[in-house]
């Protein structure tokens, strides 16, 4: 096998191993979605009775949004690992080895994808436990997982980009917090687009978080608009590629400054 496959695998293995040594980390990342699901699920139980809501139950409606937000947060922290590696000199050691920069990034993204998938499966399981129903086909579930993963890749790459450029953990934390909540509220994560004000609907059309959530609403329901799903998966793919490309380039600016 060539190094284009092997190097990312070795890098991903490093992160997975570190994660397996602290499984409680996964548990901690799930505390927030569980609170969203249980608390919001109870709090807004009755909004489904509003005319125009059109979903079975609020938990069913809320699940895609919670999954997407969880993926956003845990991908957003991705750059923190880079900063630790830079501070410790581990990054320099990788850059002095005959390894491509995109292999370093790809390995870490593979790990983020695995983490996102595990978290998503757990959240889906929890939602089903508390009464959510997903009537769509299995293919719909796959499509939504793909959307979540693509958005996660875009977010992780963006976080790595910030880390490589600005090299401060505080900055990464600030940027993630600044992005995740507003982008989530400017989407149909909590409220169907039909019930949102016009300006939010207009903004949401350009909001990648909304693309992923809408794919979820579409793909998990029985009457899926496949054209809509495919288009938005396409947008997310383009976003993920651009974001990953920019992060790879950021290695150069990091190297100029060492």
């Amino acid at each position, binding site marked *: 096998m060539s190094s284009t496959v092997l190097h990312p695998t070795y890098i991903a293995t490093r992160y997975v*191993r*570190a994660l397996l*040594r602290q499984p409680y980390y996964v548990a901690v990342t799930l505390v927030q979605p569980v609170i969203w699901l249980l608390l919001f699920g109870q709090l807004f139980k009755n909004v489904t009775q509003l005319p125009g809501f059109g979903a079975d139950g609020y938990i069913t409606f809320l699940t895609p949004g919670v999954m997407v937000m969880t993926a956003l947060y845990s991908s957003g922290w991705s750059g923190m690992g880079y900063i630790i590696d830079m501070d410790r*000199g*581990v990054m320099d*050691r990788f850059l002095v*080895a*005959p390894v491509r920069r995109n292999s370093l990034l790809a390995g870490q993204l593979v790990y983020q994808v695995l983490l996102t998938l595990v978290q998503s499966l757990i959240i889906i399981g929890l939602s089903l436990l508390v009464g959510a129903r997903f009537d769509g086909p299995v293919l719909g579930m796959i499509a939504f997982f793909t959307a979540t993963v693509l958005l996660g890749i875009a977010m992780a790459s963006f976080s790595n980009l910030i880390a490589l450029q600005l090299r401060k953990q505080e900055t990464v934390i600030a940027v993630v917090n600044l992005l995740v909540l507003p982008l989530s509220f400017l989407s149909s994560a909590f409220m169907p687009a039909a019930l949102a004000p016009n300006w939010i609907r207009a903004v949401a059309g350009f909001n990648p978080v909304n693309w992923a959530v809408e794919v979820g609403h579409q793909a998990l329901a029985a009457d899926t608009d496949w054209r809509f799903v495919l288009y938005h998966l396409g947008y997310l793919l383009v976003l993920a590629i651009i974001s990953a490309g920019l992060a790879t380039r950021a290695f150069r600016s990091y*190297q100029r400054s*060492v």
Partner: protein
Amino acid sequence: MNRGQSTNAIIRPGPAVLQAERAIQARDIAKTYTGNVRALQGLSFTVKAGTIFGLLGPNGAGKSTTVKILTTLSRPDAGEAWVLGFDVIRQPEQVRRVIGYVSQKTAVDLEATGRENLVLQGHLYGMAGNELRRRASELLDRFGLADASDRIAQTYSGGMLRKLDVAMGLVHRPQVLFLDEPTAGLDPEARAEMWREISHWSREDGLTILLTTHYLDEADHLADRVAIIDAGAIVAEGTPEELKSELRGDAIQVELNDLQPKETVLAALYQLGDGLREVTLDRRTLRARVDSGAHAIPAVLAVLETAGITALAATVARPSLDDVYLRHVGRAFNDADKGEAR
């Protein structure tokens, strides 16, 4: 790269290194960081294959920057450099395959075990399977880490981490090794041990080593050639012996009882004529170079006494690299060392 079966030697250089006279060559390399921090202003030197070259200078002199450029981590603004004939700017990939780099920081993944750190490092250099497993075990034994090899590096002591760090730089059997401050922060015993290892790699295994240090005794002890670097430029270069023999005679040092105006001291010494050279007064420490220390000391003490200046102690020393540094940089090493680290 040589991936053959290892003999007793921990590093076996490939044939290329034996033929290459100049393992490292730097020509007029310059680097300015953003904010106009001038790190290097045109550095040139050559390191012969199989030798140890010491870059000596205070923190902030540009040693680490030089190493970062030669290891392809950083790009120079001007100048050229080659490692085993490969251009560090145009052929970074080839350079990376033949070098090992141990940075000033201990670059170990603390969440992985010692063995996992070594194996990942080997993987990145294209090693795999039994060969890599054997190599990792061999290095763990060699550095006395065998018992700790399957423990998370977080549990290692500072000395153990440093050893693991150096071992990681050697996994892929590099032909040229860059050691940035290899013994900074080590206790004397660990330091002596590291010195023995470094000498061994050079003398027995034929590895070319460039090391930076701000310890004069380290450069004196280990390096075949030394370049003294200050404010981004080389101020002196040669074998430690050559550098020391440039200085004629002994160094004398007199500790004065209390702070004295420079003029008073110099006026007192004036009557001794040209017998005293390179006189400096650094707070209460008077230093000078003389042909014979044994003869000069009584005379110096006598004139000081006459001028009412009391001396607490007087010493005579054969020239050391410290004196060489003092002469070229014009201030004592420890003072220059207070500069900002880079």
